[in-house]
């Protein structure tokens, strides 16, 4: 049922800079509906910077970003709010509100953006939390659960409004392998059955091979995209040796492909 051809995110000639230091220069890519899109690259190459521009936290130095045909860069306040309502973001550190329980954290976007009653909101929040395996921790406060659990709760909060696009900043970092693979399965399921688009910053090769439809790889030297395509193709036959190396975990590793 998923229409995979709509373009959900379109970045054209995007330039990201902090002051005068340019991090990314003239980036072009598009993300289609239902795609699991991974942003990859060595540390310090601007992955998180790109993500923060895509969600409108920073104004780009040049170029444009369109989310579902809405111009994010020049959106007025009302349009901006509408875009934000349709995207969910999970930050690297979780960024849960310490003064609220996990359930209240997940319920907050529902309270702000929907007309549902408390019973319904509680049920939804509880279901989202059990999706990430936290059904028994709804009353706990973020400081009372582990870092990995905070991260999972943050994913639940990002999904609270069933957004069309989910941005996840390193979702599986700090999770154990089992939870991490459950999370991968969840991402695939949501992408396939609901057509949710995922934009994920990640380093975890195993997880990338398991979930990614498409990967772009950023490079600090060229300040641009050096590879674009499905992970297996990039690993096996990309013209740039550095890209192949990245997917093979360095020059000296013989792993040909990481299994699902």
């Amino acid at each position: 049922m998923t229409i995979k051809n709509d373009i959900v995110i379109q970045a054209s000639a995007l330039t990201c800079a902090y002051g005068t230091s340019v991090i990314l220069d003239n980036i072009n890519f598009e993300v289609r509906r239902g795609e699991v899109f991974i942003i990859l690259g060595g540390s310090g190459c601007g992955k998180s910077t790109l993500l923060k521009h895509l969600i409108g936290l920073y104004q780009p130095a040049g170029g444009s970003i369109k989310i579902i045909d809405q111009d994010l860069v020049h959106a007025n306040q009302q349009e901006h709010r509408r875009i934000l309502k349709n995207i969910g973001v999970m930050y690297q550190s979780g960024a849960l509100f310490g003064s609220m329980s996990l359930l209240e954290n997940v319920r907050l976007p529902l309270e702000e953006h929907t007309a549902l009653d408390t019973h319904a909101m509680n049920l939804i929040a509880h279901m989202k939390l059990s999706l990430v395996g936290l059904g028994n921790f709804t009353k706990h406060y973020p400081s009372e659960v582990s870092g990995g659990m905070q991260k999972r709760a943050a994913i639940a909060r990002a999904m609270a409004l069933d957004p069309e696009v989910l941005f996840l900043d390193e979702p599986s970092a700090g999770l154990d392998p089992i939870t991490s693979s459950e999370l991968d399965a969840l991402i695939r399921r949501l992408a396939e059955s609901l057509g949710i688009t995922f934009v994920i910053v990640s380093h975890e090769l195993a997880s990338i091979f398991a979930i990614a439809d498409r990967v772009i790889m950023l490079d600090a030297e060229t300040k641009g995209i050096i590879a674009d395509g499905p992970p297996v193709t990039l690993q096996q036959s990309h013209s740039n040796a550095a890209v192949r190396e990245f997917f093979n975990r360095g020059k000296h590793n013989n792993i040909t492909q990481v299994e699902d």
Partner: protein
Amino acid sequence: MPSFRNSPPPSLEFVDETTDSITLVFKGELRTDSVSKVWGKARKKTSSRLFSTVIIDVHNINYCDGTGIAMLADLLLETQRRTNVDITLEGLKEDFQQLLDQFDLKHFKPEPESKAKSIPITEEVGLTASQFLQDLKELISFVGEAFYSLWIALKHPSTIRWKDMLLTIERAGVNALPIVCLICFLMGLIMAFQSAIPLKQFAAELFIADLVSVAMLRELGPLMTAILLAGRSGSAFAAEIGTMKVNEEVNALQTMGIDPVRFLAIPRIIASIIVTPLLTLFANFMGLVGGWVVYVSLGFPTIVYINQIKSAVTLTDLWGGLFKAGVFGLLVAGIGCFRGMQTSMGASAVGQSTTRAVVSGIVLIVMADGLFSVIYYILGL
């Protein structure tokens, strides 16, 4: 053209309604932003009467997101609330069925809305008392630690982080100068002006100079400076160290074998001890200038003002005030750093320790000032 959800809200019809059975027919798209009406309607209906058979027909649902799934789950969960009811879901598309199957509805127990627990007053009193005692204990151990570190630092001045200290002197001292000067100038001015009226009744305006100079040098100069320092710098110390605590930077110091008190608190405390008397000097001077403005406007020449001050205060008054100021500086910086170290987790904790740093700083200043009054009286100063 793709666009944000603008699909019409889903519809709900009740068909085949008899006394004990009903079919709910949903049509359209079940989405977060439009599902609330049918959800409420469906729940109201199913709980209005004790139906024994409920059929939920979703053949015509062509999209159902997580919230829609939650609604269906909620309706199905009715079996948990009542035993003698048979609910069947018909026609859910495979994709959505998968989403629903993620939940083990038989064992899924939504939690009831939790109500804030009320604590009996006796328990609350006990809790507060024990917290107070704990606080006192921590304070005493911090004072011990700080004095020990201070002693070590003075014995080995090379261990003091001079750069941090100079930075603190600049931020807590130099940058505070304008506000201290302004406040104390106005204090002197207001004091002189207010006292001019009653003193005039006795033709004693001459003694305004005595009043302003004694009050400023002995009491108000040090006191106002210390209170301003508590508001400006004590709170800043608490916030800085508190944020470091929240970010686990204090833990990092500890595990590197660096004493956080020596590293963070000592430079700030020494800086405050140096800076407060200096600021007090300016405060005193500006207070006297404020008094002079009123004095001159009353028609007295400047020289009379100066002579009058000379006869009213001695150098001992000045030194006594400056010594007090040094002690106030120690208290303010010490309590600021202490509250910072006490910070627990979370963003609100930093705010709490900042507030507490200012409040306890001011309380300590006033208490110390009272003590000094008694000591100076006994010593005959």
